[in-house]
């Protein structure tokens, strides 16, 4: 009796391994991955056209899955107005919303959120916290009608890239605080189009792995937005002292 059950458990583990392999299909090829063991489907697709077609189909499905979450809520917008639509979109993605003069509305661990905001048709949304949400270029069209938005946090959003940042100019009149910390796809090229946001007072661009020179980028962004406080890396982070040079004669901030 024990033997068949053990066999079944083994089968389940193999299935899981194959599923993980499917989801890693479109990842960038790194030098380690060629050394890693190839999954069963990868091995078979070299020999069978059907398996190759199956892998292509699964890749397409994976790509299109992200689009469903970011579909446009146009029908809701007609009925409830732009503010409620934007709030509903953010709450469904897992973010938090704050209406003017009201408290923050957040979904709980199960994803449920209170629905009394559906009555706030004329109350503008003033703050959106979309940290970690799967929002992308399409989804931003639900956020852009929020003309009184003052605080926007897009921390650690995996699908926010340079194209999305180029859309933010529509919020230039009201946006005062923007946080892009930890977004893996934002690079210095997208940061260049933030110059439209002249009312911005606080900008957080720390921890951006796609930015090639964080220190230099911060200096250039500070020059671009003179009235804004830019939080990022310390400008001296990229500098390195020569081993034989000592910092002589430099005025130290703290006098001995």
């Amino acid at each position: 009796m024990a033997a068949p059950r053990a066999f079944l458990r083994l089968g389940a583990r193999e299935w899981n391994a194959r599923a993980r392999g499917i989801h890693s299909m479109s990842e960038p090829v790194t030098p380690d991955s060629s050394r890693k063991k190839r999954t069963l489907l990868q091995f078979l697709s070299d020999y069978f056209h059907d398996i190759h077609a199956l892998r292509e189909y699964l890749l397409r499905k994976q790509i299109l899955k992200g689009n469903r979450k970011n579909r446009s809520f146009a029908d809701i917008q007609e009925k409830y107005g732009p503010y409620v639509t934007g709030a509903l979109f953010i709450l469904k993605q897992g973010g938090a919303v704050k209406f003017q003069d009201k408290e923050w509305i957040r979904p709980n661990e199960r994803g449920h959120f209170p629905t009394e905001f559906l009555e706030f048709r004329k109350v503008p949304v003033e703050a959106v916290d979309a940290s970690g949400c799967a929002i992308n270029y399409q989804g931003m069209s639900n956020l852009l009608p929020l003309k009184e938005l003052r605080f926007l946090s897009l921390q650690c959003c995996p699908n926010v890239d340079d194209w999305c940042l180029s859309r933010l100019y529509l919020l230039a009149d009201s946006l005062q605080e923007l946080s892009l910390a930890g977004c893996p796809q934002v690079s210095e090229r997208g940061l260049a189009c933030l110059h439209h946001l002249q009312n911005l007072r606080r900008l957080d661009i720390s921890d951006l792995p796609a930015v090639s020179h964080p220190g230099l980028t911060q200096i250039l962004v500070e020059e671009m937005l003179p009235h804004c406080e830019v939080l990022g890396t310390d400008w001296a982070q990229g500098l390195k002292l020569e081993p034989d040079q000592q910092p002589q004669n430099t005025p130290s901030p703290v006098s001995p």
Partner: protein
Amino acid sequence: MLRKVLRIGLGSGLSNRGLRTRRGGFTLDWDAKMSEFKKKIECILPGKQWEELYDTSHLPPKQSDVVIVGGGILGLSVAFWLKKLESRRGAIRVLVVEQDHTYSRASSTGPSVGGIWQQFSVPENVQLSLFSVDFLRNINEHLAVVDAPLVDLRYNPSGCLLLASEKDAATLENNVKMQRQEGAKVCLISPEQLQNKFPWINTEGVALASYGMEDEGWFDAWSLLQGLRRKVQSMGVLLYQGEVTRFITSSGQMQTPSGEQVVLRRINEVHVKMDKSLEYQPVECAAVINAAGPWSGQVAELAGIGKGLPGTLQGTKLPVEPRKRYVHLWHCPQGPGLETPLVADISGVYFRREGLGSNYLGGYSPTEEEEPDPTNLEVDHDFFQNKVWPHLAQRVPSFKTLKVQRSWAGYYDYNTFDQNGVVGPHPLVVNMYFATGFSGHGLQHAPGIGRAVAEMVLDGQFNTIDMSPFLFTRFYLGEKLQAYNIL
């Protein structure tokens, strides 16, 4: 032993039994054919050298439904859309013939500046740009290949700034109105607003400016080209390095509804000559796409386009010729900041930022008299000193202290008629389709043009963007598609 039997069987048997019919020979020249056959059999026998049959795996296939002449961005885009829009998986066989797989000698894509903007005066160009931006935004959905790295376009969304003087201000305003109607996000700026937004600009002589807020900028053309190559190879398109030397055509007389006699030609075979050898392969094909860029005029002449009395449709040549353009890279530490768009000045000089290190890329479209010699890709450094630098320094004063790092040259597939592209079939050579002549805009319109040509080949009409103003017949009818072009 076997040899003896064969010799008896073939030699005496024939003359005795007489395989000829009573009327005459089986075929003409039966004796020569028999001796050839005997030679082949003797080769197969053990002990003889296997000379007759040789390896042809390096040659292109003998048959292909569509042959695309030119494997640059336009050729690959047409191949991609042909395979994407085919009715069944594997329905169309496509062959792309490219002279140089390293794209170093004569390609226009490699040295390109890579800009994309919607500020055109022809509505179809604006639509093409909008579609191309959409395509580039979702590039990893379109060009996804299993197990391949993602395409990183390095797109800079910094926008494009067009400056206009007094006399061009009205045209610019009309153009911007048309562009906004098509859906481009372009706005007009006055000189005062321009000075506030970009303090490093000298607004002397500028009456009006148009600025693209979104969907404009520049990207890396090389990564797009490589991504397209990978994708079309995975879709089953064959890419061969070679040169098209000859077209074998057949013609027939037809009568137009008004009773005129017209000779319609059809290309039956394409001779593809292999690189660095005299070998060629005749490829039978159903359609030929001329996407040879600057050399499209020569390819069209091979098909007999333009051979006739001047002034007739037979005598209308394809007016695409190579024109050399320089791109210069310079360093200016006090130059404009990170927000610099692609600036196109009234004088014809354009520049954009490159990277984080105060480097700038730019160039100048010369007038007809100042055209550099297109026979080679040598860079004339005096061109920058005399023609480009004065205008740059006048527009952006901090560029007075710039230092040129590098310059390179590339070809435009320049359409001498009206500097706009040619798309669609030729009226007399019925199965040659053009996708060329875009004079500097080919890269940014490539996805849209590829789709239009694929629709024309597969459905016989343009389904999405109507490119009928770009057909070949306008050269004969003399209808110029005049455009207020910036570069």
